[in-house]
Structures are given as C-alpha cells and as structure tokens.
C-alpha cells in the first residue's frame, strides 16, 4: 500500500480519497515516513510532520462531509524561500537561520487553501543562488538518482530548488514548489527526472517569496507528470494586489486544455542552442524529442535566436545587480542574524560577513560593482539593452513557431564537488534556461530519457508569454510519446 501511495498521480489520489480507498492521514503518514527514510538526501531544512498530520485530520473531516477542495490532502514540499507563517523560513542562509515569518506568502497560502498539506520546507542554494544546491548553509542536497557507471558518487540534484526536486523524485512529496530566476526549477527537474515548470513572469504573485532578482523571479511547480504540474500551477497563479507585477489575466484551466493534440503546431528548434561540447546523449535526446513531436502531428521548423551566447553573461550582470539591492535589507537590525561591532557600520559589516556564504557575497559584490558610479551604464544598462535584444529574438522566433523545443541543461547531474571551483563553468549550466527567463517566457522541463550513465535528461518547451496552454499541450504530447517510467532506486524500497 505504502509504495502505491507514494507513486500515484494527483488525479488518482483525489479519486482514491473520495472513494475512501485510503485516508488523508494514511496518505500524509506514508509521505512523512518516506521523508524520514530519505533524510540522508538532506532535502529538507525543516520538517513539519505535526502540522501536516493536524491538517490531514482536517482533510479527512472535509472528505467525510463531501467538501473536498481542488488539491485536498495532496502532499507538498515547500521551497524554503516561501515565507510560511509560524514556520521557520531560512532561504538556506545563516543570516535567516532563525527567521520565523509572521505572514504567509501568497502562493503557499493559495496552495494551502486548495487543500495541499506541506510536510516540510526544502533545502536550496543560499538565497536561490546556484545551480547545484551546493551553496546552502545547511549543506548540499543529494540527488536520489545514482550513476550506473559510478554508483558510489553522490550527485547534485541541480539548483537552486534542489531539495524540492529531490523530494518529488524520491517520493517524499507528490508536488513541490520551486522558484525560477534563471532555471532554478527547470534545471533540477531535468537532473531529477521529474517535471518542472516556470510560468510567464507575472503569472504568480511574488509576495512573500524571499527576493533574489525581482525582474526575473517567478514561482515554479514540480510534479512527477505534466498534468499534475498543470493542476498545481492553476492553483498558484493569479493576480494579487500585494504584487503589482502580478498579472490580471485570466488563468486558464491548463490541465483541461493541454489534452488537445498538437496537429499543426509549429515547434521551433533554435540553431544557436547546438553549443560546442554538448554531450552526444543530450543531442540525441533532443533530436528524438523533435521526431516524436513530428510523429504526433507537429511541424518542426528551424529558428534563430541570434543573441543566445550573450544571455548567460547578461543574466550574470542583471541578476547580481538586483540581488545586491534586494539583499541590502539584511543588516542585523530588523530581523535575522546580528554580529555586534564597535559602531553601526561595523555591526552591518560583521553581520553580513558572518551571515552570507561565498556565492552570495560574490554576487552581491559583482552587483555592487556593476551598479557603482562610473560602471552603471557600461554594465547594468548595457546588459538591460542586450536583454531587450534577447527578448526581441524570441518575439521574432514566435512569428514562425508556436513553441520552442530545447534541451533543459547541457548535461545530466554531476557529482557533488565537481565544477564548484569555477563559477563561470557552473553558470553555463543554465545556458538553455536563462534566455527564456530574461524574456519572461514560460518554460517547462519534461523527462525525455536516460543518458549512458542511466541518469535522466529533460527537454525544455518554451511558450509565448501567457501561452502556457500551448507549452503544456506540447509537453503533454512529448510526455505521452516518451513514456518515461524510470525511477530512482530510493522510491522503490519504500
């Protein structure tokens, strides 16, 4: 029974609850036990089993009364970047190690109101800055997948939402929240063999999500299949008066609309994404994905996104600049860590030196430099101009196609410790996800196969702004064709 409870889809679970095949409490307990069994992965910063079981009891009452909500009792893992009222929220940083919000983020509130039950707050790169979940103050997260050729190696789950991706992949939760600034939901989804979606910038409220780079940050959704991710995003999305950048657009019923076939859709393949040194496996899976969509009735067209090679450096000016400004609030006065000093300035400096890790300091300093007098135009304004060119590239491409198919990441999961001595090499892991982020476009990563090490690889589908429906439709068609069924060992032992 337990292993069945850990591998169902959202729709199957809701049906099972409704038909009293199992209770919300049994469902919640099974996931809490799996979370405890998987502690060695370090996917959770704070576990919340008592709260989860109390909510499960309430869910059981509702089910008995026939008052089930949209996602009643669905087990959820919450990225520890979403502020949760009364539950410690750390951003995986020493500076917020003991921060207990007195308010709830809009997205986590909406998920709670829809009935989901959060079993814990997941580990991440500190302040969501990283692509491997190795910059967390609480230590790295381990990917539940193992390489066939080197099973002794501990692999990264991707980042920054590595704990959330690992939790869903290991069956600890059915769904998980992520955030995505440059690929932080899509890339870990690819590394962990699950689905990860980032909606259009403005689709979800950012209120209560600890800010990294505000012009790029969006909430994301992890699930084990496309439909579940669509059901989850529907709940998360919508206008919020507390976030003036959240859109008033109507939120479509993504899950209902995505099942339409893709006959006649034009799928763009950007020629600039065939980067040097891309592993053959990634290339093969990309080609195969395109073939599958073609067989499903889509037309494959080559497109050009000429400024692709500038996307990563553009991002690494824009995002740190915004981060340096956003993180100025951590000064040891109103909340968070304080390290005393002889005067106020020294208190600030000591607090921030002790509270932030190396990657966060690196980005704050890059951002500070790029925004400083004399360099602002050369770096920040220049990067913003190139950001427009990148956005224009997509606009031109979408004249010729309805969705874009790319690899999600240039590699599968690598070992903890690899790439960590070279920031630029690490930054290039987001080469396929960053351009869509800069243009504010929706993107989804769908598991598309295993490489020669037996590790999952995802394909990314990028949609037009506000057209998540076509993105989901394409993703669903791809998922049907791939029929990805591989699972990490861990989920089977439960």
């Amino acid at each position, binding site marked *: 029974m337990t292993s069945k409870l850990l591998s169902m889809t959202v729709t199957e679970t809701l049906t099972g609850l409704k038909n009293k095949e199992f209770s919300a409490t049994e469902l919640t307990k099974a996931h809490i036990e799996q979370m405890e069994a998987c502690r060695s992965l370090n996917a959770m910063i704070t576990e919340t089993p008592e709260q989860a079981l109390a909510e499960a009891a309430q869910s059981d009452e509702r089910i008995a009364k026939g008052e089930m909500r949209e996602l009643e009792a669905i087990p959820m893992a919450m990225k520890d970047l979403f502020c949760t009222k009364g539950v410690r929220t750390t951003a995986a940083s020493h500076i917020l190690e003991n921060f207990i919000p007195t308010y709830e983020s809009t997205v986590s509130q909406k998920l709670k109101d829809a009935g989901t039950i959060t079993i814990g707050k997941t580990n991440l790169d500190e302040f969501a800055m990283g692509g491997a979940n190795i910059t967390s103050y609480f230590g790295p997260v381990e990917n539940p997948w193992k390489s066939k050729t080197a099973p002794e190696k501990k692999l990264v789950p991707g980042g920054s939402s590595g704990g959330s991706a690992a939790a869903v992949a290991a069956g600890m939760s059915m769904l998980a929240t992520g955030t995505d600034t440059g690929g932080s939901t899509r890339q870990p989804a690819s590394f962990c063999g699950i689905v990860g979606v980032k909606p259009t910038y403005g689709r979800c409220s950012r209120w209560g999500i600890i800010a990294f780079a505000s*012009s790029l940050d969006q909430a994301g959704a992890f699930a084990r299949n496309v439909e579940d991710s669509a059901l989850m995003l529907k709940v998360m999305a919508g206008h919020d008066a507390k976030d003036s*950048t959240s859109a008033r657009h109507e939120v479509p019923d993504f899950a209902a609309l995505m099942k339409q076939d893709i006959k006649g859709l034009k799928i763009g393949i950007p020629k600039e994404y065939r980067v040097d040194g891309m592993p053959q496996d990634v290339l093969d899976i990309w080609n195969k994905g395109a073939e599958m969509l073609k067989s499903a009735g889509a037309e494959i067209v080559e497109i050009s996104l000429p400024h692709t090679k500038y996307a990563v450096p553009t991002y690494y000016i824009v995002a740190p600049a915004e981060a340096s400004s956003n993180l100025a609030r951590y000064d040891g006065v109103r909340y*968070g860590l304080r390290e005393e*000093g*002889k*005067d106020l300035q020294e208190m600030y*400096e000591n607090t921030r030196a002790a509270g932030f890790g190396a990657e966060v300091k690196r980005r704050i300093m890059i951002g500070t430099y790029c925004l400083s007098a004399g360099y602002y135009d050369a770096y920040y304004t220049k990067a913003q101009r*190139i*950001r427009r*060119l990148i956005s224009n590239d997509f606009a031109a491409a979408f004249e010729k196609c309805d969705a874009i198919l790319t690899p999600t990441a240039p590699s599968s999961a690598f070992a903890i410790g690899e790439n960590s001595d070279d920031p630029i090499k690490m930054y290039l892991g987001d080469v396929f996800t960053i351009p869509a982020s800069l243009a504010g476009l929706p993107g989804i990563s769908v598991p598309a196969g295993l490489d020669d090490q037996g590790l999952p690889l995802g394909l990314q589908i990028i949609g037009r702004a506000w057209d998540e429906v076509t993105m989901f439709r394409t993703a669903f068609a791809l998922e049907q064709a791939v029929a990805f069924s591989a699972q990490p060992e861990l989920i089977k032992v439960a």
Partner: protein
Amino acid sequence: MSIDKSTVSKIANLARIKVTEQDLDYYAPQLQNILSWAEQLQEVDTSGVEPLANVSEIALSLRKDEVTDGNIQQDILANAPETVEGFFVVTKIVE
C-alpha cells in the same frame, strides 16, 4: 578593467561586507574572471536599443493612498535581534 584587491576592498565596503586579507586573495581573481567574461557584452551593438527592465509589459497599477494594514507592531518586531519598548535597538550612533 582590472579588479585588484583594493577594488574588491572598495566594493566590499560599499556592500557592507567585512573582508579579510585572505578574502581579498580569494575574491579578486574570481571577480576579475567573471567581469572579464562579461566583457563580451561590449561587442554587441546596442545603439538605439532601449534597456529592458520590465518584461511583463504590465503597467504598474495605482491604488488609493490609504492604510491597508497596520497595528502589527508585534509582528514587525518579532524577529528583531534586539528591541526595547516597541523600538529596534542598534549600537549608539550619536555621541
């Protein structure tokens, strides 16, 4: 453009992050590498291109200038390292 240790020291001061001599040795080459890598942006012709700050093209809405919340002093102070009688407390700044 070169990022030497004195530049890092200046940036760290602007960012209010205390750095040791060891930190300067660690960060200077890294920041130098990252910024030289970003130099490639200079080769792009951006004349006449407007900087893009807001991708959503949603006009920011205005609301009436009214208090929408308040009376949450305890909430606001709840996570402060030090408070006295409803105030945040910091090191003395006036002699």
